[in-house]
């Protein structure tokens, strides 16, 4: 299994805050990686740097051996890295189906078409199928603004997934999802990932979810990686227990 993503000594400071302090990490193809860490430890910054939203002050990011440091989000996305957002980023005045159709038209590079309809039978069929995989069956003609937070979260992920990425970065996919639904949502997501052989990275605060779904855990603290390994060994690490799990040792 080859290396999909590689960060080399990535640095990014916001004023006095070290959001990324010499971060180096390699992600293998097909891995499911959980990222944990306290607020402000640099988890989202890591995702932002990889996807080009934030430019690192120093260091390099490589995706499948290609240097992608400093590329725009659009360019990074087109290389095969998609992401979802902590706060869902959707087209709220359009319907669920229309959101998906736009994603599909962009993936097939047909988004510049101005004559044929967006809602071609083929595209609608594909979108409906994809949405069904994420649990959207009835009411895909509803405007996104009518969706509850959990539904938005899921749609946000579904849209990133629809882009057909090699690497998918999920920023807190289950925050805002009710406790009862969390595992259901993650089951749906992980099943879809595995089937499409996507390397998945997810930021998560719920340790039960990380323990259950991740086969590798990265612990961030103050902009660097405090621990890295399989869930069992990482959660056994005393430093992690103090910093992340908040156990007064």
């Amino acid at each position, binding site marked *: 299994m080859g290396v999909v993503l590689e960060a080399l000594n990535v640095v990014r400071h916001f004023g006095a805050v070290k959001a990324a302090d010499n971060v180096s990490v390699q992600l293998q193809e097909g891995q499911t990686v959980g990222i944990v860490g306290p607020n402000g430890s640099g988890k989202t910054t890591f995702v932002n740097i990889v*996807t080009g*939203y934030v430019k690192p002050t120093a260091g390099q990011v490589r995706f499948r051996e290609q240097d992608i440091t400093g590329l*725009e*989000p*659009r360019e990074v*996305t*087109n290389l095969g890295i*998609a*992401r979802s957002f902590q706060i869902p*980023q*959707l*087209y*709220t*005045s*359009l*319907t669920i189906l*229309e959101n998906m*159709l*736009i*994603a599909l*038209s*962009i*993936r097939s590079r*047909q*988004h*510049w*078409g*101005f*004559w*044929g*309809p*967006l*809602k071609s039978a083929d595209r*609608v069929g594909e979108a409906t199928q994809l949405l069904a995989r994420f649990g959207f069956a009835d*009411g895909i*003609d*509803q*405007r996104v*603004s*009518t969706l509850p937070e959990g539904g938005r979260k899921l749609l946000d992920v579904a*849209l*990133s997934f629809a*882009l057909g990425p090699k690497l998918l970065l999920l920023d807190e996919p289950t925050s805002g999802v009710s406790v009862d639904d969390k595992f259901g949502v993650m089951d749906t997501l992980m099943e879809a990932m595995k089937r499409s052989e996507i390397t998945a990275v997810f930021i998560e605060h719920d340790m039960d979810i990380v323990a259950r779904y991740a086969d590798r855990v990265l612990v961030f603290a103050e902009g660097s990686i405090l621990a890295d390994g399989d869930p069992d060994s990482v959660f056994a690490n005393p430093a992690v227990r103090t910093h992340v799990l908040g156990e007064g040792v």
Partner: protein
Amino acid sequence: MSVKPGSLGGESGVGEELGVGQDTAFRGDRTDEQALTGATSSPRPSRRGLLAALAILALLVLAPLLGLPSWLVFLFTVAFAKGLVVLGVVLLLRGDLVSFGHGLYYAIGAYAAGLALRAGFPLRDAFPLAVLGALAGAVLASIVGLFLARYRGIFFGMLSTAFSMILYSLLLKLYWLTGGTDGIAVRISSTLGLQPPADLIRLTQYYFVLALVVGSVYLAYRVAASPLGYLMRGINDNEIRVEYMGASVRRAIYRTYVLSGALGGLGGALTAITVGHIAPDLAYWTASGEFVFIALLGGSGSVFAPFVGAGVFELVRNYAQKASPYTWQMLLGSVLLVIILFAPGGLWSVFERLVGRRPTGSAGGPEKRPAKERRWALSSKR
């Protein structure tokens, strides 16, 4: 990476620029307004909508034959030509971009036709001149658009105005070329090869412009339902997501802008041909303001709305000037005020309410959409 520019007080950008009270200007709480946004589209054209469109078209075709006075035929010809420019403005409004400088394309289309005739362009027919106007608009927009596609909100609006005022100065100062304030007389010798007797010229022009309007409306309708059309609505909602889907926001705006410029040029050339005389005023900022005014008056709820708006605008102006030669702008302003207060979706929304077109899908949920979304969504409802 751009921040969602709507945050630049863009909630009621247009209202601001027209000096209308911010924020409250276009807020209406009526949920039936949702009908206009066309958020949900049935896959087939709504039969009722199609019938309504055909009925209007039949009326427009027949009206001159049923005794519409000649001056009104002329007035509507000019109104429809202007409506084409407004249609271009409305396409941009979908992406929440208020072009306060479409006089630029209006003038360049008109002057392309006028200058071509003066320079001895061999085809003195209305059709090639209209094509020339549209081309001139598209070419100019493809240059100006390179700059404008980087800006949003008030910056986009003001920069548009700046470009149109540059053209205005040029038209004014390059006397040897443009005749300055004297302008240029535009005399065509035929329309689509027809050389009607003098008393039928206006009528011929009317049908010629009407035919081009029908073609343009169909084009705009296809664009609104196309991936690019939806992408513009996506840009209006969330630019960040558009870029994170791998599409270029700037390029989408650029393409729409070029199309919009072509429509502006076409409208300008048709006005020049119809009126028979052009002057630098076409590029003056008040001309651009007029187009935005008409866009608001008609509403952006449908591709037909600009033409309703333009027709009513010209009528109101005509009578207002007659009733009160010195303060007619005040009457015009009052009309807009009434529209904003009682029909924030524009005149078209009134029409739709009368015809009874309701949301065809389930999108009209109980929640109320923010005024911004409601105002600009061009109907791609079919």
